[in-house]
């Protein structure tokens, strides 16, 4: 009586109405999601009406048994696995729980489409083609992304394990192998697809195996030590005492536009170059509560850091534990010719009692005034 299409879209519409009512009842306000669900209700109802009007989806011969058309399916098994992960996740970790949700949704979607396609007609080949037409555009990109992600993640584990020199060699080798494989494919266009696939699979398996081995053996020692000494949260604006903090500073910056000023330490002088002003400046105006990017460029032999003194006591007034003043932030040590960015956000205006300035650590007399109006 009712077409398959009508039943499907009618079901979507009814579920959407229920979802809308529940969201309104639970959230106690008509959120943006409610607007989306309302549109879904409209679209579902329209498509249901069109399906009923055109009898769309009723392509199956009702007198033919479909029992011979049903193929074996792995999706019930995958669904069960998803449920297991879901339940395990409830008592272990949220990652397992969300993994279970993803597996469950994917399996149910696949199962639903497969069940639908097996009843689309009496022709098994047609049914299989219908399933592929619906799911392949989703399956292929998702599987490719997952596969690529696994390979990249495995490669990153390898790079975290081997030392820097070996890492560079590995990159060269990997690039060379890609070049060789590409060249091989180019000069042998008639090569069997299976050979090409085998090469790619072997390469991927090799990287994944290397990644697993690297993950088991752990990161290289200096990274472990750097993490242990608080490398990522470290902010030492005085003389450097940590072993690793300043040893990985960048030599160049991609940040070239959107900077408020480029501060240069040259010939023992600290100057600010501000876009639009021809002459170097000794003061820099920074708006209140605005994210302000500054580039620090070292043009003096040696390694120096730029420190922003943001109020409070003077920079030389160190606390008893030898740490810098809490109202200071700084770059890492920057070598000759290198540069780093420093981002400031100052919420209080400067005044005679509240002075802000930039200076080079160790040479407090070289200053650039920060004016916050």
């Amino acid at each position, binding site marked *: 009586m009712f077409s398959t299409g009508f039943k499907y879209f009618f079901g979507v519409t009814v579920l959407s109405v229920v979802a809308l009512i529940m969201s309104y009842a639970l959230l106690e306000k008509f959120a943006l999601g409610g607007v989306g669900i309302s549109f879904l209700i409209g679209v579902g109802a329209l498509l249901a009406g069109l399906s009923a009007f055109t*009898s769309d989806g009723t392509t199956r011969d009702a007198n033919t048994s479909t029992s011979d058309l049903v193929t074996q399916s792995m999706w019930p098994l995958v669904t069960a696995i998803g449920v297991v992960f879901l339940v395990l996740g409830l008592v272990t970790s949220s990652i397992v729980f969300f993994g279970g949700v993803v597996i469950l949704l994917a399996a149910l979607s696949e199962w639903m489409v497969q069940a639908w396609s097996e009843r689309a007609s009496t022709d098994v080949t047609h049914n299989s083609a219908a399933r592929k037409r619906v799911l392949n555009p989703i399956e292929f990109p998702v599987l490719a992304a997952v596969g690529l992600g696994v390979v990249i993640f495995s490669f990153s584990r390898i790079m975290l394990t081997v030392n820097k020199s070996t890492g560079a060699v590995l990159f060269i080798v990997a690039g060379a192998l890609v070049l060789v494989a590409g060249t091989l494919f180019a000069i042998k266009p008639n090569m069997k697809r299976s050979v090409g696939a085998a090469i790619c699979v072997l390469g991927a398996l090799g990287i994944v195996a290397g990644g697993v081995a690297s993950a088991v053996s752990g990161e290289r020692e200096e990274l472990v030590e750097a993490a242990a000494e608080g490398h990522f949260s470290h902010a030492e604006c005085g003389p450097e005492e940590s072993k690793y903090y300043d040893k990985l500073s960048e030599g160049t910056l991609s940040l070239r536009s959107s900077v408020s000023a480029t501060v240069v330490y040259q010939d023992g002088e600290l100057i600010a170059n501000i876009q*639009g002003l021809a002459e170097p400046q000794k003061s820099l*105006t920074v*708006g209140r509560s605005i994210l302000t990017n500054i580039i620090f460029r070292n043009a003096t032999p040696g390694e120096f850091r730029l420190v922003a003194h943001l109020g409070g006591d003077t920079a030389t007034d160190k606390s008893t534990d030898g740490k810098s003043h809490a109202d200071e932030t700084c770059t890492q040590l920057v070598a000759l010719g290198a540069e780093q960015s420093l981002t400031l956000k100052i919420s209080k*205006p400067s005044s005679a009692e509240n002075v802000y300035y930039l200076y080079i650590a160790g040479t407090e007399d070289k200053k650039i005034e920060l004016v916050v109006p």
Partner: protein
Amino acid sequence: MSRRQFDIRLSVTIASVRIVLRRVFRPLIIVGGISALSASCATNAPQDTWQPKGPNSKLIDDLQQPVFAVAGIIGLIVAVAVIYTMLKYRDRGQPIPEQTHGKPALEITLTIIPALILAVVSVFTFGAIFKLAKTDDTEMIINVTGQQWWWEYDYPVQNDFGITQPIISSGQLVMPVGTKVLLRETSRDVIHSYWIPALNGKRDAVPGRIQTLRLEADEPGIYAGQCSEFCGLSHANMRMEAVALSKEDFAKWVANQQAPYVAPAKDTLAKQGEEVFLNQCVRCHQVNGLTRADGTPAIAAPDENVWSGAAPNLSHLMSRNTFAGAMFNLLSKQCRDEVWNASSDVVGAKYLAGVTEQCLNQKDLRAWLRNAPEVKPMYANPADLAVSDGKYRGMPYLALSEDDINKLVAYLITLK
């Protein structure tokens, strides 16, 4: 359902839809068309992009006039061709003519001609873009910061213009005529876009970025603008004005902005207003030089109360003509018209006169102080601030008494 039944149903449905479209949309199209045509005839249109008042906007105008002409002619030819084809070959029940595919000569011609036109347009467009992006000939810089829903201007120290200490203002950008001004734009919250049509095109103000925009005015005057990037509830009310003054008048304006704070005389209503300001307004609004009873500077803390971390600095408020993101005039209509309609040789003097007690637009200022969210849509309901970490976006309702409002108005009028 048989195929024939389906076709009949479909035909009936299409016919019904056509009738509805004719009855509903035809009048709408006619009324809309007449309205749009009438709007193009407006004489009082301060944001008209076809009336450039500076070299940068003239550069754009010199580009857009011929491009618009060429595009208009092409558009007209295409429209006539389409309408002619629709009418001449419309369905009258005749058999479908023989279908042909491919006519290389025609297709190549129809590809090359537009490509050539676009190539010519692009040469001039790129030229204009590069000229408008120049910064090395700048004579003056002004930092412009957008936030919901007002613009802040700060003038860094520039001794050539007598600016020996930073000046901070809002609503109205004041600049000297005949001077290449470079705006350094950014934003404290969401993306805004600065646009004074008479002086240049648009430039987005993006948080964390500095974007530059050249401005230069040929003659003294006031040029209106509007935020042109949707930025939230009161985007439509986020206006701005550029005030171009002669260099002499600009120097006077700078001197006034740098003048020290003058506290109201004791035992006056204005002095009581200063106390109300210290108790209520200074939580967000800074007045440079204002001190508390114990002599300590009154430092505003908008970062603790406002989502963007800033509220307009009200130093020398009455030297401006607008408030609340230039949505309201500080001048009464008559006084406002006198400034706006003044000739270029006297507009500076009239503007510098500021807001006198006689010219103060008390109605809008009092309404603003009485209940700001009622006159300008803002996110200022204390019950709905969870998403902004308890901070306001806009000015909240302060529950000021009429007595407090009287005192505040008396105080604000002293901020010359």
